Every structure is written in structure tokens, then in C-alpha cells.
């Protein structure tokens, strides 16, 4: 049980001009569940990394203390017992190959006696409800499963304070609800202090004790309980969607035709042999629980992984097309924005897209306007890898849009974006598509703000991929 005090805390990244956090003052009480919210790119990750000691705070820039003990003076070996962090990216939290070995590694580090390790692993896995994943390889797990494993490691290490940095960014509603339930249980039964950063406010209203917002002045402000209902209901309303989309018109021009296509991940069947047609110049939304195989479907559409059956693009089997030509027709917006980048600075990325562009829609003026619309103006000379996750995502979408490939597959394009960025982005997509007539296929868990773009809806669930008339 720990009271966490942030005193006069400021942090400026070496290469940045403005401080990311500016004289932050706040106390977190023990055994409380705090929701930390604020637009993407405003320093939530930075704050959490400082609080774990992964980023070190210069001595003159304030202090972070746990029960009066300064984090900077705490022995490194004691830190993990005090505070643990769950990362946003599920692929970047593990050092070992399998679930069991990762847990063993963490417990060995915590100096747990070898004869107690087995019992602790069993307990942690069954607490999170993933006992069956024990022997599995981490590489073969879905994002949601990985986050559950990450929580199991934290449970096993028994840290007092649990920090979570947008942990549900690529996790489906079912896995998210299950993880949230465990966190509440950890607070109520084990007395853990929990601080969770998220910009999606769904489901938090009834479970959190405190809501803290990052202000435009880069300070922390506690949101008074009286304002909660307004805050949560505003978000809930935008997230409610009883939108119904029609079934596709059988006579329209097909874009992709799947004939008996089946997908596998390791030995695990993702998609049973399926026949399906996706339509040209329409935007199709694909939803479904994580781990169902949506991203794998995209990877097979761009020939990054193998599949069985036949996929036809317009008139040709995609395996018979030359890679170079096909890549100019069908482009993939990767879920992880960094994967898309080939250069160093923002300006270089924009220049590369302009150089190899396919159509003439994106003039310099239109690019400048889009940069402003996405709130990226002024970042031209910045190194891409120092942008925030939200800024990276917006830049990634812009550079792929500039290319004007006839087909753009978008894997979680709203991931890590706050509501105002989502609206700006969807507006940009709408105006662009009206002129360029591209076809979009979009995988998204988050529907807020996205619905005006969508023509048809596919549901990928339980090894099936089918058109749906309504979102559920």
C-alpha cells in the first residue's frame, strides 16, 4: 500500500523544445483506481515511465515518492516490488520465448525461491483466467492474450502499484472487460493502487475512484466527481452506434474475391474455408474479437503470409501478379505506425510519398492543409521516432493517403488517437475519397466517429467472416 506523491515534477525530452510535463503536483491515494486521461501525445506515457523509473527524472526537476521514499533513492532491486508498468504495445513487454519462461524470469528476478515459483505461476495465470496459455509461445498469442499474460506477470511479481499505459489499444471488448474486472479485483482484494492511462472512457464510470486529466498547460488536474457524469456520458454517446449497414449489392464490381480461403496461426485455425466478395469503391469495415485473425487476413491479402485457397484481385489471382505492381495497387496501413516509415524525418516521409505518388490529388497546398488539419504542422523537421504514438499514427495515414493506391487496407487506423484527432482524420478521409475513388477496407475496434465512412460491415468471429446488417 503506497501513497504516491508527485512534487513539482517537470520533464523535457532532450530533443524537444517545450516541456512534456510542467510542474506537476498530485497525490495518488493507496488502494485507489485512478483513470488518467488526456489527448494522445500529451505526456501520459512519459509520466508513467517516470513513475516506474524507466525514464530517470533529473534531480532538479521535482520528485516522485512512494510512501515518502524518493524513487530516485530507492534500490533498483526494490522498484519492481513497488511499482510495475504494463505497456501499450503488447509486443514489447517480454524477454523470453514462452509464457511460462517469462513468468519464471520475472520471479527469479524478484528472488522468489525456486520451490515456490510453480505455485505462484499457477496462481497468477488462474487469477487472470489464462491457465491454458502456460506452455504457449508468446509469438503465437494475439494482442489481447499478450496483455493478459503481461497482467499475470504483474500479479505474480506482486507489485504494490500497477501502472497501465493504454493497455487496451489493441484489445477487443470482451478481453478488455475481463482485464478491467481483474484490475478491480486487485484493488479490492489485494489492496493494489492502480493508475490507468486511456483516452477511451467506456466502462470506467462505475469502477474508478479518481479521474485525472492532463491539462493543456501540461499539468495534472483531478476531475471533480460532479463532472464525471458529463465526461463519461459525452463519451458514451459518441461511442454508441446502432448504425445499420446494408448487405452488399451482388451486382457491383468485385474488388477481392476469396475462394475457399483458410487462415492458420501456428496450428491454430483462424478462418475456415470461406467464399466472399469485397466490393470496389466501397468502404468495408471488419470487426471482431482480437485474436480472431483480422490482421492475419490483411497480411494474406498483401501476400506477407501464406494461406490456402484462392484470392482474386479484380480479375487476377494475387499469387500470379508481380509483387511490385501489386504493391502499388493494394497498400496496407500497418497497425504499428513505425513499420510504415522508411525515412528519418517527417518532411522526408512526405517527400518520399510525393515522389512516387500515383495520382495528382495531393498538391503541396493540399498536403499543407492536411498537416494543419491533423495538427502536425511544425513537426516537419522532427525525427519520426520521437513523435508521440498518436502523431505517428496520423502521419502514417497521411503518407499512405498521399500515395493514392487504389486499395488501402487500414489496420486499426484510430489506434491511440483522441476524439478530436479521429474527427479530423475522418473528415480528411471523406474529402479525399470523394475525389480519388479509392476503396478502403478498415479493421477497427473503435467505431466512434468512423461510421460515416463505412458502407458495409464484415464480422470476423469464431473462424467465420460474414457480412452483417447491423453492428452489435
Amino acid at each position, binding site marked *: 500500500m503506497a501513497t504516491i506523491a508527485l512534487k513539482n515534477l517537470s520533464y523535457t525530452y532532450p530533443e524537444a523544445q517545450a516541456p512534456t510535463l510542467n510542474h506537476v503536483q498530485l497525490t495518488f491515494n493507496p488502494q485507489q483506481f485512478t483513470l488518467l486521461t488526456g489527448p494522445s501525445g500529451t505526456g501520459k506515457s512519459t509520466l508513467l515511465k517516470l513513475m*516506474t523509473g*524507466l525514464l530517470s527524472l533529473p534531480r532538479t526537476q521535482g520528485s516522485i515518492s512512494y510512501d515518502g521514499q524518493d524513487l530516485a533513492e530507492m534500490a*533498483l*532491486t526494490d522498484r*519492481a*516490488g513497488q511499482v*510495475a*508498468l504494463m*505497456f501499450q*504495445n503488447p509486443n*514489447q*513487454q*517480454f*524477454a*523470453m*520465448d514462452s509464457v511460462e*519462461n*517469462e513468468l*519464471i*524470469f*520475472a*520471479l*527469479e*528476478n*524478484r*528472488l*522468489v*525461491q*525456486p520451490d515456490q*515459483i510453480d505455485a505462484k505461476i499457477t496462481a497468477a495465470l488462474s487469477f487472470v483466467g489464462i491457465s491454458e496459455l502456460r506452455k504457449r509461445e508468446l*509469438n503465437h498469442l494475439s494482442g489481447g492474450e499478450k496483455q493478459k499474460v503481461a497482467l499475470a*506477470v504483474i500479479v505474480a*511479481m506482486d507489485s504494490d502499484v500497477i501502472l497501465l499505459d493504454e493497455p487496451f489499444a489493441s484489445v477487443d471488448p470482451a478481453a478488455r472487460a475481463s482485464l478491467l474486472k481483474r484490475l478491480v479485483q486487485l484493488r479490492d482484494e489485494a489492496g493494489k493502487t492502480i493508475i490507468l492511462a486511456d483516452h477511451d472512457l467506456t466502462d470506467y464510470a462505475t469502477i474508478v475512484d479518481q479521474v485525472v486529466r492532463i491539462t493543456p498547460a501540461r499539468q495534472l488536474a483531478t476531475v471533480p466527481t460532479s463532472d464525471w457524469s458529463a465526461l463519461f456520458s459525452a463519451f458514451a454517446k459518441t461511442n454508441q452506434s446502432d448504425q445499420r449497414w446494408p448487405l452488399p449489392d451482388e451486382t457491383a464490381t468485385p474488388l477481392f474475391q476469396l475462394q475457399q480461403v483458410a487462415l492458420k496461426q501456428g496450428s491454430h485455425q483462424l478462418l475456415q474455408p470461406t467464399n466472399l466478395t469485397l466490393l470496389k469503391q466501397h468502404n468495408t469495415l471488419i470487426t471482431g474479437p482480437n485474436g480472431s485473425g483480422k490482421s492475419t487476413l490483411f497480411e494474406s491479402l*498483401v*501476400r*506477407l503470409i501464406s494461406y490456402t485457397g484462392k484470392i482474386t484481385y479484380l480479375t487476377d489471382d494475387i499469387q500470379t501478379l508481380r*509483387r*511490385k505492381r501489386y*504493391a*502499388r495497387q493494394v*497498400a*496496407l496501413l*500497418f497497425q504499428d505506425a*513505425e*513499420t*510504415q516509415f*522508411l525515412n528519418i524525418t517527417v518532411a522526408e516521409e512526405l517527400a*518520399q*510519398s510525393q*515522389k*512516387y*505518388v500515383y495520382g495528382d490529388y495531393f498538391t503541396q497546398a493540399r498536403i499543407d492543409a492536411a498537416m494543419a488539419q491533423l495538427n502536425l504542422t511544425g513537426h516537419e523537421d522532427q525525427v519520426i*521516432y520521437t513523435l508521440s504514438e498518436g502523431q505517428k499514427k496520423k502521419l502514417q495515414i497521411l*503518407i*499512405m493517403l498521399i*500515395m493514392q*493506391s487504389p486499395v488501402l487496407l487500414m489496420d486499426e487506423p484510430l489506434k491511440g488517437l483522441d476524439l478530436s484527432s479521429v474527427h479530423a482524420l475522418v473528415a480528411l478521409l471523406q474529402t479525399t475519397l470523394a475525389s480519388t475513388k479509392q476503396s478502403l477496407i478498415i479493421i477497427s475496434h473503435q467505431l466512434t466517429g468512423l461510421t460515416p465512412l463505412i458502407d458495409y460491415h464484415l464480422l470476423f468471429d469464431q473462424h467465420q467472416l460474414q457480412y452483417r446488417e447491423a453492428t452489435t
Partner: protein
Amino acid sequence: MNPSIKLLLLFIIALEISFTMIISLNITLVILAMIYLLAHRTKLRTIGWLLIVPLLPAIGLWSTQYINGSGNKTLMAWVLFTRIYAFVFTGATFTLTTNILQLADALEQNWHLPSKFAYGVLAAYNLVPKIQHEVQIIRTAGLMRGQQLSFWSPKLYFKAILVSINWSQNLAQAMTSHGFVEDAPRTHYRHSVLCWQDWAILIIGVGLLQVGIFLVPWV
């Protein structure tokens, strides 16, 4: 058998057969390695592949030596041919029967190498398949932006190195957040044993090798 001692023995064997020209010794090593593999229930198909895959480089070496070599061309050609197989089969006795995790455990616990090194080796090994897939992804990402990244393209390597640096930083953070502290004491769930039998196998193995090289009158 302790994996670190096994590795050491194989290194010594590889080093010595690199400097000897005894065909029968090479063949003996191949046979012994094959018996060891069979005793460890290696599939016959795997052994079949071990025989087929090195055939091309072995024939290449043999013919180069036979056509262009000097001195006793026939002898040298067959020495090189059998040596390739000796390398492949003795190497396979390690790679096919030893888990990299056991090697890391042995390096950390028996040889007291810094745990950072042992786990670094392990993490790098676990990354290999990811790196292969990543290179494919980078090339596809390039094509989608109109640029062909060939295998000698600096951009491909720049990007791959960038990804690796990024991964290594993330890996370091992941290890730290899971309680790993450099040079701090840790407990060990898997106990790596280094007993007198391991040393005996090493000494007897190296001894027999010397007998094979210097004393046995091979024909």
C-alpha cells in the same frame, strides 16, 4: 550433459579436424554423431536431410580440390568432402539436442557470466524469426511507397538496424519492468548442473580424439 561442456568439446573437435587430414577419422566422427542423434530419438527424416543438404557444398569442395588442387589431390578432395559432413553432424549433436535456454542457464550459473549477457544471447536468439519476417515487411512497406528495396539497399539495412535498436531498447525496458537488474542476485528455477561426469566426458573425449589423430594407424 551440461550444454556448455558439450559446446566446448565440439569446438575442440571442430578445431582439431580443421588441421588434420584423416578421412577415416572424419567418417568415424560422423558415425559416432549419428549414433548419438539416434540415441536421442532424432527423426530419421532429419538425419536424411543432414545427409542431403551438405551434399552440394561438399561436392563443390571436392571437385574444386580434385581439379585445381595441388599435392595429393584425391586425398585432399576426400578429406574436405568428409570434413564438411563431420562439421555438420557434430554440430547437429548440439543444435538438435540442446535447448538454447539450457545453454544460457549453464553460462549464467556454471560459468558465472553476467546474467545480462546470458539473457541478451537468449533474447537475440528468440528474435531471429522475427527479424526474418521484419525484413520481408520492410521490403513490402517499401514497395507500397513505390520503392524497391533490394538486398544491398542501404535503406533496408538502415531500417532493419533502426528496428533492432528500437527492439533492444524495448527489450531492456521489458526486462527492467519485469524486475531484472544488472548484476543483482537472482534465484534459479532451472538448476544447471556441472558435475564430474561432464568433466570426465570432456577429458575422455578430447583424449580419444588425440588417440584418433596421433596413434591410430588409419589406412
